[in-house]
């Protein structure tokens, strides 16, 4: 029994050590740890991020760990946020990335700029910022070293949410996760939105076909003059004051569609193409 207990302690201790060692200043030469490790949970993130905490909490923030590293007069801040799930972590990355810059293939996706970097892997969202003595200095090589080392030490999914693959790529300008109220409608709780040169598409995954059908019924009631169209299991098209030509369809537990197009027929046409891409 004693041996089994000792084994368990060793196992737990090694697990904890593994979980901790993604935070180190030794991933690039010349950097030393400065100060104590930061730890925040949802109830005190405000103390660190001030009002910016809301932007994390809305995406399902659980906890954050962080350290500061020093090299000369430069300071590198590393923060690793643990989110509810991988979709939330990727959603936070999409919300915070610079949409004018390309996404790097690290984890589920990342970005490196001269003085900052970020990526998402599994349920983790990682941010790094250099507070540089010289405002125009380029720390890209250092950030890449840290990025790679941390990514290797974090476990979790490296593929983007499946729903994002369903959006047609032609004329696509941006995709993002909306943590609540997709299209500004509370009925559509959490989902993905793709913005096109004209209009936007969305995908929301409900828990079951039955719950999706209930939401679909409420949506149909919400839009005056909604008329049925043949897409998926059920669908309607309408013209709405702020969403323009809109078409919403249900396919199993998935609610999806197009909005902000000049007319509802065009929205229905686009929605049919989206439906064909959903397995």
């Amino acid at each position, binding site marked *: 029994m004693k041996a089994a207990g000792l084994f368990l302690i060793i196992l737990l201790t090694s697990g904890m050590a593994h979980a901790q060692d993604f935070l180190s200043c030794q991933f690039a030469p010349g950097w030393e740890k400065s100060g104590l490790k930061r730890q925040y949970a949802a109830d005190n993130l405000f103390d660190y991020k001030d009002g910016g905490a809301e932007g994390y909490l809305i995406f399902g923030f659980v906890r954050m760990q962080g350290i500061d590293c020093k090299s000369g007069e430069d300071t590198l801040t590393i923060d690793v946020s643990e989110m509810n799930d991988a979709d939330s972590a990727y959603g936070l990355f999409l919300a915070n990335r610079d949409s004018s810059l390309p996404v790097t293939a690290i984890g589920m996706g990342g970005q490196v700029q001269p003085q900052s970097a970020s990526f998402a892997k599994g349920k983790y969202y990682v941010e790094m910022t250099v507070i540089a003595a010289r405002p125009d200095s380029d720390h890209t090589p250092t950030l890449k070293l840290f990025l790679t080392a941390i990514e290797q030490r974090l476990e979790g999914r490296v593929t983007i949410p499946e729903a994002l693959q369903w959006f047609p790529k032609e004329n696509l300008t941006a995709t993002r996760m909306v943590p609540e109220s997709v299209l*500004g409608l509370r009925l559509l709780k959490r989902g993905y939105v793709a913005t096109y040169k004209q209009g936007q598409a969305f995908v929301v995954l409900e828990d079951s076909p039955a719950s999706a059908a209930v939401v679909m019924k409420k949506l149909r009631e919400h839009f005056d003059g909604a008329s049925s169209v043949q897409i998926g299991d059920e669908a309607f098209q309408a013209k709405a*004051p702020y969403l323009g030509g809109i078409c919403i369809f249900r396919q199993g537990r998935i609610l999806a569609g197009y909005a902000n197009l000049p007319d509802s027929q065009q929205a229905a046409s686009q929605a049919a193409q989206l439906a064909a891409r959903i397995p």
Partner: protein
Amino acid sequence: MNSKTSRRDFLSTGLSAGFTLPVMAAGSRMGLWPRESADKTAGSPAKLDFRTLGRTGLKVTTLGFGCMITSDPSVIERAVDIGINYFDTARGYQHGNNERMVGAALGARRKQVILSTKSDAENKAGLLKDLETSLRELNTDYVDIWYLHERGGPSDIRDDMIEAQQLAKKQGKIRFPGVSTHGGQKELLPWLAQKGVFDVVLTAYNFSMDSAMDQAISVAAKSGMGVVAMKVMAGGFRDIKPDNPLYTKLKQDGAMLAALKWVINKSTISTTIPSMTDMDQLDENLQAMAHPFAPSDVKLLAAHLDKISPLYCRMCGECDGDCQKGLPVADVLRFLTYADGYRQFALGRERFLQLTAEQIAVRCGDCADCTVKCPHGVQVQSRMARAQELFA
């Protein structure tokens, strides 16, 4: 108002101010007037109230729009249609993506509204660079109010930052300089009022804060600064999480709306900027302009304060019993209140670390029972343990 006023007294005072200075009466003194505006979606008119934003002379709706976590531009577009005319964003929100969305949502109607943004840059060059980026992303050639973002005290505001704001104003890129703050208001607001170079202050403010905050805001308002309130609801409810049964109860009971009305009822506040992510929230918050803070709202908010009272030490000095390990219990609970209640984490930790090494090493969770009891129901042992977890 006495700074030792209890939270319940603070609530009651808020209501009595509403009675003695009804919204309309207060409005007539502050340039407020009612207006009917068509609400295309709901089909019913929304009642809008306006106040003057201090010495800027701008007429702002008492309900503004905090865009920070808004995802869909349609909500902003509808708010503009309804007649809400104050919209707030910041360079740092979603790493600039929020400014871009707000700019696209306002579009050609940008000049119909009052638009504010912020920069958290720490020097003149950084601030001016941020402003250029903000103007480009917002698709405008000026912002109405440009805040120095998240300043926690006078030492966070240096002369070169003021120079940046003055230069931007001279160049016509901003109309009015301001400062935003989440903490340290009791020192910062009187300092800003005395400084006289900032036209607007954006501050966290809600019903759960103590009366000293009310006094600080009053000083700012009397100096002629326009006062914009943020965290008017989330701040007061930040300890109640969605998985807490109380969270649903409070929302169902309309306590969120009561909290918003509590702030709007304060004549020192020109406008508020609650975050809104959907049309339903917009509709709910519009009610705060249509209905004054009422006795039923007092009950809702008082009930909430009762719920959180086991967490908050009132600093009455009436602790029953002494700590067997020599801890100054009232002091440690006060440090925790700095952090949890007033969001002064650094101050709380600083004070905690001034305890002796023996006191800092004590872990209240190791005691079987606590010998100190609070006559008001503060859970002393668990709160002490939280202080040790947070600060030690």
